[in-house]
């Protein structure tokens, strides 16, 4: 791809922003600066993807790349606690709130953290925990052509660092809220979450990306998950961005031997959301599960791109992605399972199920398998359809009216994914959103 033909302004604008940041000594003297610089150079060289790129064929991002984005003012904007109340997920070990990328101290708390677990702002950890961060931060993602992950690495200011030491079990979830608000100028943020779970550790983390009001925002996020031997990590990403917001998120996971990582991604709002996932099963016996649910309307678009690499033998990976598309919404799914030649006895499954509620909704689904080992089990399946009319009749023949019957089926379709969420208040809230979207009558 060339930068000459597409959105040079925006690319140059990011380059200029970076130069301005480099005038600050603290920025250039950090151990992380060389990584930033390399990422930016890589980004400038390649620019933003266009629909000519295979991985972006169905997702046109011109709306995002033709806008001039600026970072928020230095101080966190204060937002009312009430505005965030609806996103609460019940009892938590810690809450971190960022508003337009800036840490909001008054809205955050780490009261419930114990057992040697570290949960702190990434901005602080970059200095104070550099030795712990170095093996992970910027090391997990391997795909070099991900413009948005590169931008995040170049510009990341803050986010959350979670460290769960050997054998520690965090019994309550950590909640991270990245909120975007309406600003005078289109505002970009580059939040980053790094979660390191050591041997046999267990933790549950929820990242909520929320739009407050009609935020004209661009969120470029990276989430890095390093799951140590025997560790068990539950990660949730909830996207409820504003109706005119762009979200480009990348999740990278490393799984060591016998570890488990379950990441559930629910998208219910936002103008355009792209989720990139890269997962590397590096030790024998690892198991990663990626669940996804998109519930879209109007002209919303959600694009889930996954790349699961089986590096070690005897690993399992599961991808279950579902979408409910109303209005003129558009879903894209591309899941690639890549099995290295040593990764014998791989067991990998990928399914993508789409429910189209309107004639104008669109779905593009692309499964890809690349297998270099000869003793593996890899399956994929995609279904795209309307509500099963036989099932509607069955329910009606038992006394449910047509709306109730249809709603029950859509709800059930969504619920198969939501049931995987073990945090009751979170699951119940998402269920309520689904129910609220269904036609009344």
């Amino acid at each position: 791809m060339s930068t000459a033909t597409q959105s040079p302004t925006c690319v140059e604008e990011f380059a200029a922003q970076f130069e301005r940041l480099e005038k600050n000594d603290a920025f250039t003297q950090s151990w992380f600066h060389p990584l930033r610089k390399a990422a930016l150079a890589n980004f400038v060289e390649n620019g933003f993807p266009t629909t000519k790129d295979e991985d972006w064929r169905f997702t046109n991002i011109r709306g995002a790349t033709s806008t001039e984005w600026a970072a928020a003012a230095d101080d966190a904007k204060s937002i009312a606690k009430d505005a965030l109340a609806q996103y609460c997920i019940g009892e938590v070990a810690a809450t971190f709130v960022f508003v337009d990328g800036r840490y909001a101290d008054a809205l955050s708390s780490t009261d419930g953290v114990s057992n040697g677990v570290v949960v702190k702002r990434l901005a602080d950890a970059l200095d104070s925990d550099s030795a712990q961060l170095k093996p992970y931060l910027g090391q997990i993602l391997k795909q070099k052509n991900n413009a948005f992950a590169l931008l995040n690495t170049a510009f990341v200011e803050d986010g959350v660092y979670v460290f769960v030491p050997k054998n520690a079990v965090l019994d309550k979830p950590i909640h991270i809220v990245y909120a975007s608000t309406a600003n005078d100028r289109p505002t970009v943020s580059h939040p980053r979450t790094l979660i390191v779970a050591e041997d046999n550790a267990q933790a549950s983390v929820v990242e909520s990306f929320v739009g407050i009001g009609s935020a004209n925002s661009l969120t470029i996020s990276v989430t890095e998950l390093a799951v140590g031997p025997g560790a068990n990590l539950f990660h949730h990403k909830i996207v409820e961005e504003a109706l005119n917001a762009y979200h480009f998120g990348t999740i990278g996971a490393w799984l060591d031997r016998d570890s488990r990582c379950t990441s559930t991604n629910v998208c219910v709002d936002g103008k355009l959301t792209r989720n990139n996932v890269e997962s590397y099963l590096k030790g024998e016996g690892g198991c990663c599960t990626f669940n996804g649910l998109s519930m879209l309307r109007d002209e919303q678009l959600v694009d889930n791109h996954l790349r699961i690499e089986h590096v070690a033998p005897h690993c399992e990976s599961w991808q279950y992605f579902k979408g409910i598309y109303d209005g003129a919404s558009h879903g894209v799914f591309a899941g690639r399972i890549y099995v290295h030649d040593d990764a014998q006895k791989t067991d990998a499954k990928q399914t993508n199920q789409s429910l189209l509620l309107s004639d104008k909704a669109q779905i593009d689904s692309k499964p890809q398998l690349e297998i270099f080992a000869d003793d593996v089990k890899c399956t994929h399946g995609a279904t795209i359809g309307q509500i099963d009319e036989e099932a509607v009749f069955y329910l009606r023949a038992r006394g449910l009216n047509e709306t109730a019957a249809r709603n029950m089926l859509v709800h059930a379709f969504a619920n198969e994914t939501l049931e995987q969420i073990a945090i009751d208040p979170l699951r119940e809230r998402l269920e309520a959103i689904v129910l609220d979207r269904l036609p009344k009558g």
Partner: protein
Amino acid sequence: MALLEIRNLHAHVEGNEILRGINLTVNAGEVHSIMGPNGSGKSTLAQVLAGKDAYEITEGEVIYNGKDLLDMEPDERACEGVFLAFQYPVEIPGVSTNYFLRAAVNAKRKHHGQDELDAVDFLELVKEKAALVELDSKLLNRAVNEGFSGGEKKRNEIFQMSVLDPTLAILDETDSGLDIDALKTVAHGVNTLRGPERAMIVVTHYQRLLDYIVPDFVHVLREGRIVKSGGKELALELEAKGYAWVDEEIKTAAAAS
């Protein structure tokens, strides 16, 4: 007044006439069996009565409890007491039997101006009825019919029937695919529900079911018409002589007239 009065009912599907003038009167308390070879229109009749919209009614009328049945939506018919036990019960991923059945029970109660059943009362009811057809109550918390054996699906139908307590129950080949033990269990469930207020239409291909659910009347359906009616002995005769015997009889009768 009869509970159900079918008069000269004609139904098409995709341009083919399947029902060609059905006449049938069913009174409360009666069990009618409708027998016939494949393709005779048995299942179509059952589905038309339940309100499946794949069929176009071209002629005739159906009066149920004094009301025009064909004018009602399927859910309205259900709320008014019509129940169809499906030949092929539908699998519904993500919806448990208990969840949807409680919604169905409450839809019916609401229709009749009664208070909704709460979860406790509902579970009580369900427990009792599940035992009736020896349905493992664990199945009721699983997705409707998903991963159920053929026998479990059919028992689930009869279980739902007993919970919904219909006035007119239509059993569409409830015996197909059942082994003899399952058949006995299902028949026991059905027999328990027999009563003076309730009528049943038992659609079957085989006489075997009628050893266990003994009908008051047997009707033979042939090419969309009821060509012969009789008592329970007719089923035995059919079993012994086959459906071809009915054809012969009709021919002879036609020649004689």
